[in-house]
């Protein structure tokens, strides 16, 4: 069976799906400068406003259900992708009380997100993936395979990560945070913007009038370094090539690359090399200058962007770009109207964990 994306919604620092797509095409960032996490070190972050992160997720999933062909989720598998789970709440308690007594281990774990959605919607079953910044991309990879082997008819993939001190201060310790809006692929880029988001994607074995097909998936490991990507880009190329093989298409058939494109020196160098080698003529941009890097939510969030790009037939511009470091890849500073049949979306993570997803028009 083929896997179709039939309903989706998201929330990030640039707003919901429609607001985000408008922001992407208008090159209007949702990222802002913050000093609340590190008072003496301003950093640019993608922050959302909310009181209860889990309630936000429930409201988003309700919207997806309302927009779907389903009456409920009782025959739907839930797969959550998150890198930190309940860390934000654990931190609050620990920083206040300076002990662990008020921390509920079940609410610290990654599975706190699926637990709250299970309780509200009564999904058939659930599972949670945590492979850092590829978490929800890998959730989509598994969803496609489960549909392909006819194990499930409906799967809701939900990517979610809330900002917390551990991630903001941790990335700062690695020296990869920018104090400005990030500039993916620019020669003067100086780092990434950590961000938060929630994104839900309903994957089904039937198509509807607005479907986009999840056509191919590929994954690999660099086996190079625990945080730095392989400078020869072998891992990145392998995940991209595997996804093309799974989709049954050639590189030349891909019309747009939604890049991982964090704006760090290492990532963008390696991803550029992979793209220069495999897809030098294909339009490429990173939307992280608009959304920030939403970590475990990024795969699902950028899957939605990829589907919208196909539906709108409009290649997103590379925001924040002045001078590209690598002139051998096809970055465009303006939107490009064209028929878009296939989009590849890359997600790369700590541990050299690489995942590529290919979305295509339904034929």
């Amino acid at each position, binding site marked *: 069976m083929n896997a179709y994306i039939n309903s989706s919604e998201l929330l990030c620092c640039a707003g919901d799906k429609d607001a985000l797509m408008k922001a992407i095409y208008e090159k209007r960032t949702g990222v802002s400068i913050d000093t609340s996490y590190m008072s003496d070190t301003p950093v640019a972050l993608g922050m959302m406003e909310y009181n209860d992160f889990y309630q936000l997720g429930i409201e988003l999933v309700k919207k997806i259900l309302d927009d779907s062909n389903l009456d409920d989720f009782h025959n739907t598998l839930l797969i959550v992708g998150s*890198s930190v*789970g309940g*860390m934000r709440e654990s*931190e609050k308690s*620990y*920083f206040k009380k*300076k*002990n*662990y*007594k008020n*921390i509920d*281990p*079940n609410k*610290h*774990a*990654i*599975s706190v997100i*699926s*637990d709250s959605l299970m309780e509200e919607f009564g999904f058939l079953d*659930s*599972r*949670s*993936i*945590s*492979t*850092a910044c590829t978490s929800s991309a*890998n959730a989509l990879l*598994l969803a496609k*395979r*489960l549909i*392909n*082997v*006819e*194990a*499930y008819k409906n799967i809701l993939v939900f990517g979610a990560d809330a900002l917390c*001190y*551990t991630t903001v*201060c*941790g*990335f*700062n*310790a*690695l020296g990869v945070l920018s104090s400005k809006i990030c500039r993916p692929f620019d020669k003067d880029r100086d780092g990434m913007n950590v961000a938060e988001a929630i994104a839900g994607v309903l994957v089904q074995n039937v198509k509807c009038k607005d479907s986009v097909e999840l056509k191919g998936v590929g*994954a*690999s*490991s*660099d*086996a*190079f*370094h*625990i*945080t730095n990507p392989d400078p020869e880009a*072998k*891992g990145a190329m*392998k995940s991209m090539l595997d996804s093309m093989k799974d989709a049954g298409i050639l590189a030349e058939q891909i019309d747009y690359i939604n890049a991982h494109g964090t704006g760090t020196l290492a990532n963008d160098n390696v991803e550029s090399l992979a793209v220069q080698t495999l897809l030098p003529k294909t339009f490429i941009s990173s939307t992280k200058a608009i959304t920030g890097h939403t970590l475990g939510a990024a795969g699902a969030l950028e899957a939605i962007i990829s589907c919208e790009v196909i539906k709108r037939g409009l290649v997103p511009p590379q925001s924040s770009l002045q001078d590209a470091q690598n002139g051998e890849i096809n970055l465009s500073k303006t939107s490009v109207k064209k028929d878009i049949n296939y989009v590849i979306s890359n997600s790369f*993570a*700590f*541990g*050299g*964990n690489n995942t590529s997803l290919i979305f295509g028009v339904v034929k």
Partner: protein
Amino acid sequence: MKKIAVRIISSAKIYAPVKIDNLDEKRIVPKMMIRRRLTRNSKIMLYLADKCGFSGGKIVYASAFGELQATVSITDSIISDLPISPTSFQNSVYNSAPSYFSLLNGDKDEIITISSGRNSSRDALKTATLQALVSGERVLCVATECLDIDRINEVNSCTKYLESGVAIVLEIVQNSENSYELENLKDDGVIDSLQDLISVVNMCELGKNTILVEL
């Protein structure tokens, strides 16, 4: 629900009340500089993979609580206004253990990390079965938990063993005759997130090596 028959090629388990004594680290990871960076979950995973005779291929790893020691190191630095160790941060992600395995063994294949709370090893088994089904390859399915942090007693009411791990290598069998349904053969006191794989290992010890797994 679709059930797939898998054969368990090899299996291993280990646990200790506080710290597992001998993980054969010097033989498995001869380079001291790398060995020093490994998390406890990584060391247990490497030990179990070695016991299972697995040196490369697809991995499905599971942990409900991930790298608690690295996480505690980060939050303690923040609360004390001290610099965060970059090594602690890079080690704090849930996929650290299989990533170190990949690094040390030159394994460039797919790694999926599951963290489904008490269902972590159940979901790892389902996912490993899916990975074996779509690839036709043998898959390492491994789950570990390391809760040996200062003041763990403030929150731990769920296990007698602060360090634990379990692993199997599985492959798909075409003929599901003579396959067994999963039995509840838990080891008393082991954390819930490992118990479903513990049951599989215990079934193997009883000679029940071919089991049915619901995807």
